[in-house]
């Protein structure tokens, strides 16, 4: 039977009423108090966040059918609802955060169980007035062993939830891509490797882009771990001959060790690999190069050689440094040991000098070179002024903390951690104040973090802060790889 005009009008009013009620959901009146602070996922209670962070959508442990949160400081308020996860409107969030930068806001969460609302005790969130860099670049890859399937390098706008692919291996099938690196958080100057047939190192200096074969007859491998010199004229690379082993006990999984490793310098302008006897062809294992913020010092990790796999547990890296003169591209004559692994009983890895030049953040593991598979791996901050090493207890967990990267303003940093499930690496953000004290870390926000992190079968790898959007002409990269347009680089070992 056809609908009559009357029926249509009534139905329209009902639909409009439903729609209007959905648009202006009223602040719930709690019929009970939980008497405690809610247990959130992700845990955003009492965190300090940068003023430009994406909305901190969260869910509460337990069963409920609706969630409500009120963010408040004096008269400034933000209210948000959600079904299982809070869904904070992004525009309102951004203006609320700007309004309250440098202040502490109270968050009150209520959940509806059945048709009754229950309110939790409020907790504070501090909005730091210092903004972090707007983007993070990371690789997403399954935490596997030797085989990789779908992977890619992605950029995430940390002020929103927008993630875009910079390059995915669906474009260049069967190839691996890794070790993206930026000069001083500059999105226009980057390099990354593409492994496999016709692979090489993609280099974008801002002025030109090229695909380079950094493997020479005089080095043990192509470039592996990169670090740009602040001038943009050089990139220090480790070259590594690496092997994997697989543990049998339930606590451990993978071990990665180097049979040999050196450090070389790549001259960006001349497209030449420069090798110094100080860091090359030595019996020691040198890896993880990193330039100081002023570019006058090259930090790196060095270990005494031990045959692997038999003695892999004896390999421990010390933090070392050597002077560097960028005007001549030459090194000093002496290597200084800054942190001696024998003295601290740890392997010092991934040195990352702070942008203000006052400290170096490192990863400490019991042994070895690949801390992501070491549950005991923690972050530590080495103060260059007081020459003291301090474990970053506030950010460390019972599980792995590994790769870390500074935001360009030198306050915020990102690090990878396996604290959530022991396998899939997630990104956490934290800040360090003038005294080197870190704030409580928080998980990189997602639109629906619980669902997203539970269902994702990818690990976050090599997170790097950048100051803006990265542009890569992925079709140009594809063309170079497919056509084998790869340029061999020169080699010089006459530098000091």
């Amino acid at each position, binding site marked *: 039977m056809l609908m009559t005009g009357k029926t249509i009008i009534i139905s329209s009013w009902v639909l409009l009423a439903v729609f209007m009620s959905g648009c202006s959901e009223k602040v719930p009146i709690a019929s009970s108090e939980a008497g405690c602070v809610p247990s959130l996922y992700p845990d955003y209670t009492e965190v300090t966040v940068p003023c430009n962070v994406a909305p901190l959508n969260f869910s509460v442990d337990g069963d409920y059918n609706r969630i409500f949160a009120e963010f408040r400081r004096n008269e400034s308020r933000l209210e948000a609802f959600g079904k299982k996860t809070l869904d904070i409107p992004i525009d309102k969030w951004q203006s609320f955060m700007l309004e309250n930068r440098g202040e502490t806001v109270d968050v009150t969460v209520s959940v509806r169980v059945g048709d009754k609302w229950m309110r939790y005790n409020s907790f504070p969130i501090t909005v730091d007035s210092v903004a972090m860099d707007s983007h993070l670049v990371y690789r997403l890859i399954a935490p596997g062993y030797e085989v990789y399937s779908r992977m890619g390098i992605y950029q995430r706008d940390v002020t929103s939830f927008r993630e875009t692919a910079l390059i995915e291996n669906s474009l260049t099938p069967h190839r691996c891509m890794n070790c993206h690196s930026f000069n001083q958080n500059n999105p226009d100057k980057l390099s990354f490797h593409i492994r496999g047939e016709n692979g090489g190192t993609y280099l974008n200096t801002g002025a030109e882009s090229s695909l380079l074969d950094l493997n020479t007859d005089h080095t043990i491998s192509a470039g592996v771990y990169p670090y740009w010199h602040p001038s943009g004229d050089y990139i220090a690379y480790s070259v590594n001959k690496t092997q994997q*082993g697989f543990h049998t006990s339930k606590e451990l999984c993978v071990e990665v060790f180097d049979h040999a490793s050196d450090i070389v310098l790549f001259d960006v302008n001349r497209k030449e690999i420069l090798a110094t006897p100080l860091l090359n062809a030595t019996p020691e294992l040198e890896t993880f190069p990193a330039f100081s913020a002023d570019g006058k010092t090259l930090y790196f990790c060095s270990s005494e050689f031990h045959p692997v796999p038999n003695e892999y547990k004896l390999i421990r890296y010390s933090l070392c440094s050597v002077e560097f003169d960028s005007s001549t591209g030459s090194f000093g004559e002496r290597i200084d040991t800054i942190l001696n692994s024998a003295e601290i009983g740890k392997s010092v890895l991934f040195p990352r000098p702070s942008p203000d030049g006052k400290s170096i953040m490192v990863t400490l593991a019991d042994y070895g070179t690949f801390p992501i598979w070491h549950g005991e791996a923690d972050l530590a901050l080495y103060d260059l002024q007081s020459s003291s090493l301090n474990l970053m207890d506030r950010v460390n967990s019972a599980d792995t903390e590994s790769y870390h990267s500074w935001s360009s303003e030198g306050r915020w940093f990102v690090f990878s951690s396996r604290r959530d499930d022991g396998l899939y690496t997630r990104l956490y953000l934290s800040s360090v104040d003038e005294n080197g004290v870190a704030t409580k870390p928080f998980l990189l926000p997602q639109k629906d973090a619980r669902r997203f992190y539970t269902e994702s079968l990818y690990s976050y790898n090599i997170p790097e802060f950048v100051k803006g959007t990265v542009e890569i002409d992925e079709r140009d990269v594809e063309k170079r790889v497919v056509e084998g347009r790869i340029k061999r680089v020169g080699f010089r070992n006459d530098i000091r």
Partner: protein
Amino acid sequence: MNKITIFGYLKRSHMRILPLMICGTIFCFFAFMYQGHLSYLADFQMFLLTGRYFVEMVSHPGGFSEYLGEAVTQFYVYPVIGAAFIALLLYSMYRLLIIICDKIKPQSAKGWMPLMPVIVYAGLLCDENFMLAGLCAVVLTLSISALHLSFAPLRGPMAYYILMAAIYWMCGLTALIFAAIVYTYNIIRTDDRYRVTLVYLAGALALMVIMPIVASTFLQYPLSRLAFGGVYYNFITIYPTVLFLEYALIALLPAICILSGTIVRRGPWLKHISILPVMLTAVVMVSGYVDLRKEEVLAYDRCIRYKQWDKVIEMADRRNPDMPSTVACLNLALARNNQLLEKMFCYYQNGTGGLMPDYVRDFTLPMIYNEIYYHLGFINTSRRFAFEAMEAIPGGRKSVRAIKRLAETNVINGKYEVARKYLTLLEQTLFYKYWARRMRGYIDNEQLIDTHPEYGELRKIRVDDDFLFSQDEKDMMLGLVYTSSHRSRLQYEYLQAYYLLSKDLKRFLACQSLKKEFPVSRPSRTQQEAICMVVGTGREELDKWMVAGSTLADYNSFMASYRNFPKDPQMLKNFDNTYWHYFIRE
């Protein structure tokens, strides 16, 4: 009278009955002779019943047909249902072709030709690398084509272009089948052939060039992949010519039928000749694509996956396995039945590789081999093999079987958080959700796991000592694992079998005196045969090792024959079920 009626009915209706018979035969073949293949295909995908998965799948060209293909393939876990779906899809393809031919020119689809694409696709599906998505794409395209031809208002150029774009996005390259059908329809029914060619053919080709280029601006796939659309072949960088030929055949079938109808009118007997290419195609497809050797491997795999140990041994009794993977499956089944040392040399053995195979960079074999390490208590190795197999699947698909194994191994290892993650994913599938829900009960429940007949036992025998897995020192690892618990008969039998297969009789004998926490009576026949070879024929010594008199007599007989006729095949044949035969074989 009755006979005449049936004969008459058959004569009149044979073109209705024959396709049903062919599809029935295809059903029977897949349901009863190709179960391993179907089960394997169901294992190597993870179809999630969520809106997000649907959106993820349909967000690239050909994604909708891939989604449909996966939706149907998940039913392959029950091969009879899977085979029914295959037969149904093939029959649908046939009927749609008939409908389309009739729409273009009534009565043009007489004869055998419309059966040809059905037979070709049935043959292609016998190769596990041809995905069901390709057939779904064809059926979907033909359905849209038939509807398009049925409804006059839809026949305008604008509707045509919109449908063409929609089919490209849903199915990929098969949009060209739609274009060819509509072009044939219009060319038959119009006098303005120039306009029809420009609008319907040139326009379609231009669209098929433009659309992949547009897609390439926001999707990171090679242009060739975007032009092809869906993943119809497992290896995404390979575009098999036979698939193009099949699609061309389907696209041109209405034209072929019309043309053959014209020829047949000149001599009705010619109608029967059209059976020849169809039969020839059937022969070519069966001989080219049916791989019963591979089916044997996959059937063994299916059995060990579902712990059907007796069935594995029955299969081996019917046909002695001779491939490393099938031998490895058989040895596991024998060991699970406590018969490894008793019966292993009754079958072909290919050395230690058929006992504890090495890892290979592949997606099929590591999945099979993970089962062996799992039952042996090498939980990390099982997990690694399953993970690596899943990561090696072309196109980045995940595997429901691998995820299940990852959940199990993490529960056994007490890694509950990551196990919970895998169970959450399995709860979103059709056939594993109840298992996953049950499994949730084991999370954080040590007592429940310890009392589980499988997980509890594996916890007792698993490798707890830490060392790096070495492919070249499996006997050392087995020895270490076994001596740490002395509980597992399986590990003990594998250790003994390893020494026997590597012909390391000194270590085999030393291994006899290992402590055992399970009942052991007299050494097995195989062990006795090996003991004879080490300790000689001294009765006192053999009594110490509990070697039976009959074994000694056989050994003496073997040695006498071997000394006299060392290269006599008949002599070897008489002892081909003995360890001695394996030992002297090069």
